[in-house]
């Protein structure tokens, strides 16, 4: 990659990454196996848990299977935001241009501060000192760990921080102009970390382009023609010469959206509620000009004239929801943060200032597997029906594995995605899912029923009698063996809808099993114990009959 010169547009950037901020915020002993869950997935884990194979993004059941002794904590985003506010305000003593991405990750341009501190190494050392001091002062994690990377452009700096060890000794400083060489050997999957579509990375791998260097070697015009603006953005990142989004432009100051509060507001919730409206207005204003916000400054003022202003960004463009999240983080950090920094009166003004915008590329149809028009339409229809029937009425399945047909697939409520992504985000959320191939590959569930699975799993199982040839009820002994050969299935209940007669009996022509089940025997309340058999009756219908708590029930029908 020689011959490429770094244009002056690339900002030399320092990234501070506190990799396990959710753990730091919860003040967890790093030697204890602990995992933190957010939205049902692992967001952070301590070293002992990671040693057992727990990784970010795993589902709870998977992580607990790998590391059963781990303590499970719920993520506390409020504490994360409060703690990180202390770090950011401390860093403002180093440079006024700190840009936060989310609690645990922030960056700033080094050009100014290196003059003050005399070189990048000294700057890294000083930054580390400031960050660890801020963490210690807010009495968060006992042994705070922060990583620092310096490179041309925020993308390369972020990757440098991720690949670095504990700062300051482990910090990775990519020399000036060295970003292309630093990025070249990295796998293209790292593009997904910066908010870009994972599909593009998949596609590139399928085309044989496994490293960023190989992708960067393609002519930019061809990349644009084939992959559109998203592809060109990725190409620029991969080249390491220019990490601005396509079509970045200066912002006219009258695009800012101010919201005044009279009387002043003390509660965060009310401010955030107003921020949602403001974010929608901003989004509307920008999109009517064909642009989208990539970096935003959130300014808050109080009655007594206290003022806080923070610069936030995300990997790609900021949606209204992302902006609202950041308003909340900033306010949590300020109003409930360190007492010395707390304001003394209510909030009177909130201003959302778009700091950097890019051309809104809209939503383009993908070549492979990206959200299509059909996904979008389906998402809109689902949102409409949620409006009609209420939340929770529309559900999407997610494969989770299990021993019984009623637990293998979990239904989660459809979450209306505010932006125009339709179900695309939904699909992304369910990325770990559940096609046929997936269902056959899931980790083994010892004692699970063999395939095929029943096509009807009854929500309200019907109680039946299972009797042997002599008419005695079939029971189970301590070892899970049946007391007799099932011969007849009978329902002697009042009228039950699918079975038209009051007394319905059917001869069993064939049966299989039993498959005993004893789940969660350690938990008195949630223990499930029973025996399952498959029976085929004379009418040709196969059913799954389960004995639990002394009652046989038709749990499912192989319809």
């Amino acid at each position, binding site marked *: 990659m020689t011959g490429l010169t770094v244009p002056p547009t690339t900002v030399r950037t320092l990234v501070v990454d506190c990799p396990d901020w959710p753990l730091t915020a919860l003040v967890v002993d790093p030697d204890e196996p602990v995992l933190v869950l957010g939205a049902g997935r692992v967001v952070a884990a301590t070293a002992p848990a990671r040693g057992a194979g727990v990784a970010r993004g795993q589902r709870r059941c998977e992580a607990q299977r790998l590391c059963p002794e781990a303590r499970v904590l719920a993520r506390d985003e409020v504490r994360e935001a409060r703690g990180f506010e202390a770090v950011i305000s401390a860093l403002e003593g180093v440079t006024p241009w700190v840009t936060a991405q989310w609690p645990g990750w922030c960056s700033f341009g080094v050009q100014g501060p290196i003059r003050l501190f005399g070189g990048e190494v000294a700057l890294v050392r000083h930054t580390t000192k400031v960050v660890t001091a801020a963490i210690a002062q807010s009495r968060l994690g006992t042994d705070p760990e922060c990583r620092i990377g310096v490179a041309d452009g925020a993308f390369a700096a972020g990757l440098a921080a991720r690949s670095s060890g504990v700062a300051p000794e482990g910090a990775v400083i990519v020399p000036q102009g060295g970003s292309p060489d630093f990025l070249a050997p990295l796998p293209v999957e790292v593009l997904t970390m910066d908010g870009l579509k994972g599909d593009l990375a998949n596609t590139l791998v399928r*085309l044989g382009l496994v490293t960023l260097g190989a992708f960067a070697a393609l002519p930019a015009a061809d990349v644009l023609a084939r992959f559109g603006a998203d592809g060109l953005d990725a190409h620029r990142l991969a080249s390491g010469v220019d990490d601005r989004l396509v079509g970045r432009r200066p912002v006219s100051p009258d695009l800012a959206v101010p919201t005044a509060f009279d009387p002043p507001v003390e509660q965060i919730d009310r401010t955030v509620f107003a921020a949602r409206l403001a974010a929608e207005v901003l989004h509307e204003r920008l999109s009517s000009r064909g642009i989208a916000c990539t970096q935003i400054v959130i300014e808050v003022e109080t009655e007594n004239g206290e003022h806080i202003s923070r610069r936030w960004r995300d990997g790609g463009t900021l949606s209204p929801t992302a902006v609202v999240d950041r308003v909340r983080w900033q306010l949590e950090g300020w109003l409930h943060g360190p007492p010395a920094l707390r304001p003394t009166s209510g909030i009177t003004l909130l201003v959302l200032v778009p700091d950097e915008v890019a051309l809104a590329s809209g939503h383009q149809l993908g*070549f492979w597997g990206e959200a299509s028009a059909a996904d979008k339409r*389906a998402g809109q229809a689902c949102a409409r029906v949620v409006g009609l029937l209420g939340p929770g009425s529309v*559900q999407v399945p997610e494969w989770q594995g299990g021993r019984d047909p009623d637990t293998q697939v979990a239904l989660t409520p459809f979450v209306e995605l505010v932006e125009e992504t339709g179900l695309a985000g939904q*699909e992304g959320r369910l990325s770990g899912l559940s096609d046929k191939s997936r269902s056959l590959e899931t980790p083994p569930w010892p004692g699970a029923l063999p395939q095929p699975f029943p096509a009807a799993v009854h929500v309200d199982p019907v109680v039946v009698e299972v009797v042997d040839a002599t008419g005695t009820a079939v029971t189970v002994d301590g070892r899970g063996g049946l007391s007799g050969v099932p011969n007849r299935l009978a329902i002697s209940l009042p009228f039950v809808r*699918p079975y038209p007669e009051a007394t319905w009996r059917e001869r069993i022509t064939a049966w299989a099993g039993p498959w005993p089940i004893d789940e969660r025997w350690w938990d008195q309340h949630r223990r499930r114990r029973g025996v399952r058999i498959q029976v085929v009756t004379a009418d040709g219908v196969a059913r799954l009959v389960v004995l639990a708590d002394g009652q046989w029930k038709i749990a499912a029908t192989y*319809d």
Partner: protein
Amino acid sequence: MPSTQPTSYLRSLLAEPELFDDLPPEELLERHLFSEEGPSKSGLRVVPSLAETARRVQSTTLATDRVLPVLEALKGLLPNGLQRGITVGVSGSGARSLALALMARATETGSWVVVVGDDDLGLAAAAEVGVALKRLVVVNAPDPKQWAPVVAAFVGAVDLILVSPRHRPLAAEVRRLAARCREGGSVLVYMSPGVGHLIDGWPGRLDFHFSINEASWVGSDADPTIGSDMKQDRLRVRQVYVSVNGRGLPPEGRRDILLLPGPEGAPVRP
């Protein structure tokens, strides 16, 4: 970084796919500009604008787009696939598996399925038959008054709608839904609630009616009965006799024998 060889190879991969054979002549001329033997020799290379690219990759409606694909095993019953915009009834013992099998292939090619009001549907079985669960949405049984508006909200928005109302819908509602399906290109699949019932609750004409006339389960290949002597075996495959009647078919309909589920889960022809 060795750049020349891979680049020339990849450029061919990156060239625009031959998806636009049906473009009008003036566009073909324009396309010619991008091709290798076009004016690129003279150094001119026109890069299409984003809007232009977006317009080109937009789907065009071909005759085959009016049909949803079906599994290979169902080709005997539906040789041309599932026509969009029709209403289909499924009945008999095994109706759920058959309904899922009808929809499976289409979900793999990007169509969405919405299941309205069948709380008993086995989703693991759906995945096993081949339905892509990531394009499946389940709607709890709505109140009879809201049933028609809910189904109507999905008509035109998703390709396949599986309904199994617990009540008897009004004939006028059903007629309107069928008309909207014809317009919007969605397929409405009706399955009567419960197990093993006949089509009796649908107060309108169905374009196609699939029924399973006979079904028999078999165990392992060696022993066609399962476990009758306490042998450790399990349900394996079910042989079903399916017939389909409806519009444009001979009066006696079409018949076929399927293994549903087959030995691997997905239906196959024996």
